[in-house]
């Protein structure tokens, strides 16, 4: 933070650099990429397999909401279980595996440091995925805890904690071997996230499941945890990736160093108090609810600061953004971050919350954050990172387009449908003249629309999955462009 020189320039050499130095830089980066190859590929593959599994669960859950008799005879697929299986595969299967790859790779690249003994990472990755498999099976087979975002049976927690420790420590070890003088904003976010996640997870597991706290301290801990998984784990890694990829692909520095400092510290300070807004009106002390509301409103500061910083970096280069598959996803995600956060701040106001709380509006909002922001940035990051890890290009620009458009339109429709439907539901629920069953019936068209947009998203995911498999097939099955830097990415990066 100190020093007068805004040292925000991205590591790749400026255009004037000699050919020799460029070659040396490129060789060094290749070495770093090679050190992550096996572990990185494992994380990406696991992530995408979980994404597909989670998508199937999502469709089943969504369809059941307007056709309750669908698959009703199978206890293991009852709504309560299958929606929880969806959430846990998406967060801990898709989300965490994607983060492990993206965060560790960014850390290695930015630290100019190889990932040492990558074999341990592979082992840890296998362990993590075993844990998630056992956990999701447990949810479906009736071992579910019914604690939101912590549905996996508590026996799984030690497995996940151990494998996480092996993965998180690797990020810190890589950082401590850094060859660079300054520490870039993406590294702050990743270091913070690596440290915050295990703390949140351990405290929540212990205080809710292992040694349950008394009464409403449980839901308070629950929402401190669940909201912070988004705010202090998914968000910082997404922002780290956006802060890296936007300037990297555009080949220009981030607009303002000082804005990134303010954005980081404001997020660190305010986000972790905000989760209590899920309990507004509930049986907890009023001052806690107020703290949650204040923190949620204060979140406008880091959000607007980051939005300005990214916007000013991108401005004038929207053509490049459009051509780069990476940036198309990342910029969509970054814009969603601004939108979802500002809506979230508004939802924490008591007057708004009284309508949106307990409705599908919140479900739409959750997907706005975890999907339109986090997941889209992870897609963009994987499009950038994977070719560098395995030195192969993505074989089809068409599949990338299908992926982008299906998911972008799908999630937009999804959020809009549930926001409108949820808002109506909230207004009607607050009017006791309207019978409850009428309120329920009036949500059905919006829930049906959700399924249709969900199918659109599934098309996008399928394109992504097929594309990934295609990319990994032996060379004779692929059209091989001359180098892996087509489709708009910066060759040296």
């Amino acid at each position, binding site marked *: 933070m100190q020093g007068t020189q805004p040292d925000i320039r991205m590591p790749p050499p400026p255009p004037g650099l000699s050919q020799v130095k460029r070659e040396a830089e490129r060789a060094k980066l290749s070495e770093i990429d090679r050190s992550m190859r096996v572990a990185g590929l494992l994380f990406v593959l696991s992530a995408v397999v979980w994404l597909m599994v989670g998508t199937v669960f999502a469709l089943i859950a969504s369809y059941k909401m307007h056709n309750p008799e669908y698959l009703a005879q199978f206890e293991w697929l009852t*709504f*309560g279980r299958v929606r929880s299986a969806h959430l846990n595969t998406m967060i801990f299967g898709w989300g965490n595996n994607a983060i492990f790859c993206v965060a560790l790779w960014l850390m290695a690249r930015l630290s100019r440091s190889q990932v040492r003994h990558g074999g341990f990472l592979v082992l840890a990755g296998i362990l993590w995925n075993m844990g998630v498999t056992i956990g999701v099976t447990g949810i479906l087979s009736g071992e579910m805890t019914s604690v*939101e975002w912590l549905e996996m049976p508590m026996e799984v927690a030690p497995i996940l904690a151990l494998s996480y420790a092996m993965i998180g420590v690797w990020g810190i070890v890589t950082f401590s071997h850094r060859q660079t003088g300054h520490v870039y904003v993406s590294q702050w976010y990743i270091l913070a996230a690596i440290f915050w996640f295990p703390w949140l997870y351990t405290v929540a597991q212990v205080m809710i499941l292992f040694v349950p706290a*008394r009464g409403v301290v449980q839901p308070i801990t629950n929402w401190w945890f669940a909201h912070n998984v988004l705010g202090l784990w998914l968000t910082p890694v997404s922002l780290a990736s956006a802060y890296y990829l936007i300037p990297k692909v555009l080949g220009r520095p981030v607009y303002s160093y000082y804005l990134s400092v303010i954005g980081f510290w404001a997020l660190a300070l305010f986000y972790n*108090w905000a989760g209590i807004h899920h309990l507004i009106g509930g049986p*907890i002390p009023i001052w806690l609810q107020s703290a949650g509301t204040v923190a949620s409103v204060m979140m406008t500061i880091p959000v607007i600061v980051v939005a300005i910083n990214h916007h000013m970096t991108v401005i004038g280069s929207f053509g490049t953004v459009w051509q780069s598959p990476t940036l198309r996803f990342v910029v969509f995600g970054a814009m969603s971050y601004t939108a979802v956060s500002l809506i979230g701040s508004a939802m924490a106001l008591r007057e708004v919350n009284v309508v949106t709380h307990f*409705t*599908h509006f919140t479900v739409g909002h959750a997907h706005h954050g975890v999907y339109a922001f986090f997941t889209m940035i992870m897609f963009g990051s994987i499009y950038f990172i994977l070719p560098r890890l395995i030195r192969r290009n993505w074989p089809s620009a068409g599949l990338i387009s299908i992926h982008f458009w299906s998911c972008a339109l799908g999630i937009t429709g999804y959020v809009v449908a549930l926001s409108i439907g949820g808002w109506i539901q909230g207004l009607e629920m607050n009017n006791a003249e309207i019978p409850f069953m009428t309120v329920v019936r009036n949500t059905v068209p919006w829930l049906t629309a959700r399924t249709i947009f969900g199918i659109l998203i599934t098309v996008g995911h399928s394109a992504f999955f097929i594309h990934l498999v295609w990319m990994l097939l032996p060379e004779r099955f692929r059209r091989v462009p001359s180098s892996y830097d087509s489709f708009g990415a910066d060759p040296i990066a």
Partner: protein
Amino acid sequence: MKNLPTLFLGIFFALAFSWTGLILSSHLFLGDLKSTTATLDEQGNPVEGDPLYPLKLSGIAREGKQVYIDQGCVYCHSQQIRTKGYGADFERGWGERQTVARDYIYQERVMLGTMRTGPDLANVGTRLSSVQWHMQHLYEPQITSPGSIMPPYSYLFEVREIGSRPSPNAVSIPFDSPYAPPEGWEVVPTPRAEALVAYLLSLRVDYELPEMKFSEDD
């Protein structure tokens, strides 16, 4: 950024601050709440001889809560009544008073819930006290609540041929209902369904606490 100690201390204290402020403080503040009587004597102690609230769950209701948990009922049903004038919890008849922290002290797992796809259940044992109603509703929600989007929990029931005489606990379903079993057959709740209904009936906010009385009007 070059000043790494500042970065690490900041990362640490940011979370430590919220953990202390939200969780540790509410634990200190609410962690030793005890059951008490509806009114207190002059010294502020529970009145001797009066019943203490909240109650602990009975054995079978505890088993039923486990079914409630493993089916994921909490994802559509909350268990909290909000203050009068905030939302329409009172007007909908979901409870006669707001729920407060003390109501939850004996719950080993607190399921306030964040979703009301279905109605709130904090006081469902008082609102809907018929075992038969709950059995019909769980077996096939359309019997009691046409248009409901709640899934049927028919796998918690056994449809079997009537033996020498009908089972005393068979679910009564009108013969003309499309969900009635074939003639000579009956729908019998499994022990899990019995336990779940016992749990639902145990959900009652029909007592007052010193800090929260029933609302005056309505």
